[in-house]
């Protein structure tokens, strides 16, 4: 018998199923060859080692940003600043990869740490504003995304740009700065290991340390936390620092693992997608892995679909919106849970 306890899992699966069905429905409406397009969307991501590699490659930055956002959401902070931090940390890591000369192991470590620290420090600004004066972190973090993008673009165009490159891109990175490949035949890099280690670290931090306890209590009920003697101002600032570090680390890892020049002239969108990953994972660090892989899967599917059929990849943002709406919909399928509870209570024999 299915128990009410499994309700959340079942609901998540139902949400995913509904959003996939909706995707297929939209494809059926707009595509000239719907069946083939659907096939491409669903199976192409799994059709070859290279494509599976693509999924994992894309899941790496999503794990970082998803983890970052999950921590913030966990503390009941609606901060979507991971986007700008990810981008700007990428710029910082690129500068180090271009301008520093270091040995093979030290170079990426320095670049990633610098990116992470940049993220942490920049993230602390909305954090301090929120903690000290209760400035709305959602609006400030989104404004920061635009500001960091503008400033980052300025650095790219005026400080890093390689005039010999055909596109608007930085000078080439020193090979010593780039992350090593992990799985031959794909572009999966050791950033995957870093992402999983970060997830494990955050998991233990959150559930097995007193600081994680303070974070969870602050997020669950700030008054209660304060009443228990927790310095919530400090907690909020610390969460921002950690989340900023993770987002910055993600940006650095992505740049050094996947490219040999910095070439983002628009915000790459991983930060906002991180919010979706966090929601799918129910702000649970370990679940971030699965959520990131799933999101990467449908994104690669959409990319392949855009390449091989007449349906553009932006379709995926409609699907993502539906996932968010449904996954956070408390009442969705609730009637079903109520019926199960009634049954368990033995009222309806």
């Amino acid at each position, binding site marked *: 018998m299915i128990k009410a306890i499994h309700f959340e899992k079942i609901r998540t699966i139902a949400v995913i199923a509904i959003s996939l069905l909706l995707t297929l429905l939209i494809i059926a409406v707009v595509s000239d060859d719907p069946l083939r397009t659907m096939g491409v969307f669903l199976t192409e991501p799994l059709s070859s080692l290279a494509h599976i590699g693509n999924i994992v490659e894309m899941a790496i930055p999503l794990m970082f940003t998803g983890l970052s956002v999950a921590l913030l959401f966990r503390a009941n902070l609606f901060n979507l600043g991971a986007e700008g931090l990810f981008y700007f940390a990428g710029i910082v890591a690129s500068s180090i990869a271009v301008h520093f000369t270091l040995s093979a192991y030290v170079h990426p470590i320095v670049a990633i740490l610098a990116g992470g620290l940049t993220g942490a420090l920049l993230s602390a600004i909305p954090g301090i504003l929120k903690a000290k004066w209760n400035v709305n972190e959602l609006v400030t973090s989104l404004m920061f995304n635009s500001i960091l993008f503008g400033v980052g673009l300025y650095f790219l165009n005026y400080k890093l740009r390689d005039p010999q490159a055909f596109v608007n891109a930085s000078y080439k990175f020193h090979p010593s700065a780039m992350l090593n490949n992990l799985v031959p035949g794909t572009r999966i890099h050791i950033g995957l290991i870093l992402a999983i280690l970060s997830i494990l670290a955050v998991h233990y931090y959150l559930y097995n340390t*007193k600081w994680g306890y303070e974070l969870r209590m602050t997020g669950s009920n700030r008054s209660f936390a304060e009443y228990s003697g927790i310095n919530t101002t400090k907690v909020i600032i610390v969460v921002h620092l950690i989340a900023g570090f993770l987002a910055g680390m993600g940006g650095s890892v992505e740049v050094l693992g996947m490219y040999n020049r910095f070439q983002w002239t628009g915000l790459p969108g991983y930060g906002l997608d991180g919010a979706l990953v966090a929601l799918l994972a129910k702000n649970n660090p370990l679940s971030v892995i699965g959520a990131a892989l799933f999101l990467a899967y449908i994104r690669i599917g959409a990319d392949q679909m855009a390449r091989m059929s007449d349906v553009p990849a932006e379709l995926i943002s409609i699907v993502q919106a539906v996932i968010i709406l449904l996954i956070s919909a408390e009442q969705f399928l609730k009637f079903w849970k*109520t019926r199960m509870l009634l049954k368990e209570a033995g009222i309806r024999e």
Partner: protein
Amino acid sequence: MGSSPLLEMRNITKVYPNGVVANSNVNFSLVEGEIHAIVGENGAGKSTLMKMIFGMEEPSEGEMLLAGSKMRFRSPQDAIDNGIGMVHQHFMLVPSFTVVQNIVLGMEPTKGGSINYKEAVRMTEELSAKYNLAIDPHAKVENLSVGMKQKVEILKVLIRGAKVLILDEPTAVLTPQETEELFRELKGLKREGHTIVFISHKLKEVKEICDRITIMRSGKTEGVFTTSDMSERDISRLMVGRDVVLKYDKTERRAGPAVLRARDLSYMGPEGKPLLSHVSFSVREGEIVGIAGVEGNGQAELVQALTGSLPGVKGTVEVAGENMIGRSIKEVRDTGVSYIPEDRMRQGAAKDASISDNLIAMFYRMKEWNRGLFLNKKKITRFTEEQIARYNVRCKGPEQPIGMLSGGNMQKIVVARECEAAPKLLIAEQPTRGVDIGAARLIHERLLEMRDDGCAILLLSADLNEILEVSDSLLVMYNGQFVAYYPDVKEVTEEELGFAMLGIKRQDAAEVRRALHD
């Protein structure tokens, strides 16, 4: 009274989305022109039943008949349209609105698309004259006294043409005098042909004004009785299934040196009204000092001052010889102060966190509860299981979110957390509000046990029964001051207490100052 019922609820079952079965197979009927009491412990399902009658909740199963025909209320508007009105326990008023805005909200008279306030004021004045409920229509509700707010609530119901009035624990926040006034008003309404449902667990009041009683127990009805046939003991027995009169065999108090000593605490409110003036008292080892008083007479500010969350308070607070003014909450707690807050949902618990997370809030920082960087999970689980057993908490285990528990069980966890920290001083603010009698007894017994072990306990309660039964000595607060001190609670009569609480009678300053035990 043998006529056919005005309102009938048949085999009503209500399951809340969180799985709580609040009513199961409940039957209830109301005869026109009666005052009908619904009694039961907290959590017996009285409020849920009323919410269904008033259309705030819909029954999961069962049917409802109004004057013999089947009805289904989807919203309070449906109930209001059918002449049913409700005066809620927690007032349903918009604080920043005036009395008249609150009264006409939802049925505003209009002129040319905008609200016709002249007409609204006229309607209000007419009604308040008719039912003898005097009120200033232009006053802002946030500035009114509790008794006045209740009048606004009753007027709100009457202006909507209610014939049936549901009053949910209306006397809980009233002074004895205000209660009497309310009862006069209710009898007047009955004479005018109104039918009244009176929800309460104050049996004395029920005996005084109600014609019939429906008794509820753990979500079920135990039966309907004519009040005059029943003694308070009978009712109580049906309510809880055993003779529950909260009486305790207390040991003799063995008071030691003072643990808490507060001197001349004064605090001026934002509006320039003194909320505390020259409050001085002490609590000694091994005694329970009760503070009685109508709510809003400075008790909340006093607790804030004692727990380090009232910046700007003048005077001194010493706990075990250490000054507490200007300390952070953490520092106050680290000195050995525990605090059971009045509002368990806001301050006392994090409702989607687990029982064990809620239990360790006092301990997680301590070295013994950590192993290196990590929390000692085994110890935490073992501790939680012990407390669940010790406090007889009904739950599914340590990892269940505390929000799934009933009020009484949740409060037991709060009490367990605060008491197991082995405090020197325990401040208990309304420790049994909204919990069932079984839980209340357990909590009281635990407080007495702590007292016998030498803990100094300060008990603030609006529940006279609790304060008279549990305390050793008693202070009465009125208008931010202590107006009476009774070194031995046994010497106090309820009547005398009532006079002190209303500021009608007060002891002289020297008499009250004995509470300092200098």
